[in-house]
């Protein structure tokens, strides 16, 4: 099969060359299946994961990602950070150019930051820049746009001032919310600047063609500062929502990279395409929310703990999903910088001990064979969510829990979660950036994404303390203490940590698995 796969592209190229001339036939076209049609190619109008694959090849932030996801200098070649961690001074590289040859200036960054925070832009993700001084106030209209903490000291020097020291800010600058946008082009074309033909970008590639719902073509940007190092002649992104379609197209040699494959095909892939199948830990947590509001049985921490104890996470990871998801005994996934995750107290207990303890807790809470606990478990419709929900309902059965499984499509699911209309509900979180705070903030009192309305003063106080702490390691320790508090409370039911699943043509070089699953095409080449 493997041999087959490697031969196929060449064969395909020969047949194509013989029969038609409309397809690009040169070998160094990288063809990537992304998981959906981008909402936009304007970095300020997107909030999804797959948009990042395209937009991250088109643009470059002050900081950017290496092949392994590590942060390296991007448009900024160097920077200084003030003692108190609130003032960043960036020196932009001299050879930073837009794809039309214009220089990328500090002013482009100022323009971009102001634009994303302008309510008229209606950017979903504007809040990611709230660490910047006055950003939130400007968004809500409480401050003038020019008071934003970003300033062009000269064309090549940019100063960003933060509200308070934010240890993960440098990482965040590689995110698409912090990309520069070309002031001269946006002013000329308005909202239509991100269309093919109008768009000018500063990254390794530039937009050639965008045919919605079927393909996006980009070619190297000859003005890019490292243009000489780019091995590819073209990158084509195919939006493919059906994971099985992506797999089939990969097998037929029509694409080189599939950014996701169906979990249920993992066993087959491991046997037949072992060199192409990549799974790696990914910065995300799959968990169940407990509704902590009064009137729900899950408001009782011991019921929550019993339910959590009864879930055999290893069975779910290995038998139900089986794509190398690690069973989760913490809320923050492993691999987060400057952070050593806390752990559920029962992680070391055997399954028998856990069940015994769970039985005890349920009895104490007043539930038993004659007074069974009735729960409504909600999940949004999807094969994997369904399988996990069925398995967990079966695992709770020995506790005498009667589960009413309730699925709905995603909009209804989350609308009802916001209303608090559930006992237990499926949820997931993928880190916006590599920092524990991004996960733990979901459990702070009154936060929008805290669907279960979990509230613990001790936890909140620790999180506030961490926010004020400069030293990264100390800050990590405080957050770990906070996480321990939440885990001891069984605030949520962590099930497993996400993994990234990619199919990658073995002939490609420069693909490195990493926890954020970021793979920029500039590092990729075909082996000769």
């Amino acid at each position, binding site marked *: 099969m493997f041999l087959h796969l490697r031969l196929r592209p060449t064969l395909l190229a020969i047949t194509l060359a013989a029969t038609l001339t409309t397809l690009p036939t040169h070998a160094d076209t990288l063809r990537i299946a992304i998981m959906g049609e981008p909402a936009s190619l304007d970095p300020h109008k997107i909030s999804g994961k797959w948009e990042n694959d395209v937009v991250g090849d088109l643009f470059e932030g002050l900081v950017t990602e290496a092949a392994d996801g590590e942060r390296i200098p991007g448009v900024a070649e160097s920077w200084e950070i003030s003692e108190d961690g609130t003032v960043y001074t960036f020196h932009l590289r001299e050879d930073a150019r837009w794809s039309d040859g214009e220089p990328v200036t500090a002013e482009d960054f100022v323009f971009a930051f102001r634009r994303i925070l302008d309510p008229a832009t*209606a950017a979903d993700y504007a*809040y990611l820049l709230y660490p910047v001084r006055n950003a939130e106030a400007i968004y809500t209209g409480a401050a003038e746009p020019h008071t934003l903490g970003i300033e062009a000291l000269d064309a090549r020097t940019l100063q960003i001032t933060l509200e308070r020291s934010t240890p993960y800010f440098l990482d965040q600058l590689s995110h698409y919310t912090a990309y520069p946008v070309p002031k001269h082009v946006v002013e000329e074309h308005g909202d239509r600047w991100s269309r093919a033909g109008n768009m000018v970008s500063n990254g390794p590639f530039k937009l050639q063609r965008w045919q919605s719902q079927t393909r996006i073509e980009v070619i190297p940007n000859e003005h890019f500062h490292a243009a000489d190092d780019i091995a590819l002649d073209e990158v084509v992104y195919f939006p493919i929502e059906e994971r099985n379609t992506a797999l089939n197209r990969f097998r037929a040699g029509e694409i080189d990279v599939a950014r996701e494959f169906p979990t249920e095909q993992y066993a087959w892939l491991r046997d037949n395409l072992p060199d192409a199948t990549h799974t790696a830990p990914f910065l995300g947590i799959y968990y169940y929310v407990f509704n902590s509001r009064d009137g729900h049985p899950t408001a009782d921490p011991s019921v929550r703990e019993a339910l959590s104890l009864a879930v055999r996470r290893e069975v779910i990871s290995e038998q139900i999903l089986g794509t190398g998801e690690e069973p989760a005994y913490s809320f923050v996934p492993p691999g987060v910088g400057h952070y050593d995750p806390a752990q559920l107290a029962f992680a070391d207990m055997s399954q028998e001990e856990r069940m015994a303890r769970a039985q005890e807790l349920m009895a104490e809470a007043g539930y038993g064979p004659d007074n069974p606990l009735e729960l409504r478990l909600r999940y949004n419709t999807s094969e994997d969510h369904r399988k996990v929900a069925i398995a967990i309902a079966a695992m709770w059965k020995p506790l005498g829990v009667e589960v009413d499984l309730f699925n709905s499509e*995603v909009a209804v699911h989350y609308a009802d979660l916001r209303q608090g209309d559930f006992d237990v509900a499926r949820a997931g979180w993928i880190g916006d950036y590599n920092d524990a705070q991004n996960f733990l903030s979901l459990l702070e009192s009154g936060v929008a994404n805290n669907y279960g309305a979990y509230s613990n003063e001790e936890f909140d106080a620790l999180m506030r303390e961490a926010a004020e702490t400069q030293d990264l390691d100390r800050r990590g320790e405080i957050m770990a203490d906070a996480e321990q508090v939440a885990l001891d409370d069984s605030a949520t039911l962590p099930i497993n940590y996400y993994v990234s699943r990619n199919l990658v043509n073995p002939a490609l070089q420069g693909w490195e698995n990493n926890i954020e699953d970021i793979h920029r095409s500039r590092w990729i080449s075909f082996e000769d």
Partner: protein
Amino acid sequence: MLLYVFKRLFQAIPTLLIVITLSFFLMHLAPGGPFDGERQLPAEIEANLLATYNLDQPVWKQYLIYLGNLLQGDFGPSFRYKDFTVTELIAEGFPVSLELGLWAIALALLLGIPLGIVAALRRNTGLDYVVMGTALAGVAIPNFVIAPLLALVFGVMLAWLPVGGWNDGHWRNMVLPVVALSIQQIAYIARMTRASMIEVLGSHFIRTARAKGLSEREVIWHHALRPSLLPVVSYLGPAIAGIITGSVVIEQIFGIPGIGRYFVQAALNRDYTLVMGTVVFYGMLIVLLNLIVDLIYSVLDPQIRYDD
């Protein structure tokens, strides 16, 4: 006749208005909004987004705003595909769906009708059973099974045809989706043609024609065929509207950039403007095609008139 057509086109206005009104309120009454997803937005961001799309207004006001824009031919921007307006999305996707759909319909008619006639003439013979059995298989296997199967066999295993992609409508990319789209239609048309042909062949006027000593060929071509196509035509009106607006299953499995996906995805994403755009567009097609069907009736059976 012309007067009838004008009358019907005029009737389309109130019909579509009712469709728009009902759909608009149905959509807004349903729970879940365009910004309900795995990631809940901070309150001020959500408030701003709602305001941007006028969603903070009372529904009746939004309705009036929508109608006002519609009168000027403005379907609004898509909430989900932010770089495009609804008009652009439909204008870009519809030709693709239309092209695929017309091929599928042509194939279905060219195969379905002759097969149905043959089966009717050779009724209850081996040939009839083979033809109808095959047609039944086409009905029994849903397209979400046929499509991936075709892709797997002809795309992956045999590698005769591309698994997916549109490639600007190259014929190689069209074969599998057209076949997948038409299999069910062939079956429907063949089954219906057979049934109504049998009905017509047994009727009085055919017996009269035969009694007059006309040849079997003449009887079938000149007398039986047209009336027996009547139910097929009735079925085809709405069916064609469905086929040329694409199928979400076929489009997703073969990566076709048509508009079929919007009918489902726009609703799932609560992309209100796109939902309304597809509803209005589909409504217009239904009205138009059912009008054409009614006109074809009088061609197939000159006795059918609408003037009373």
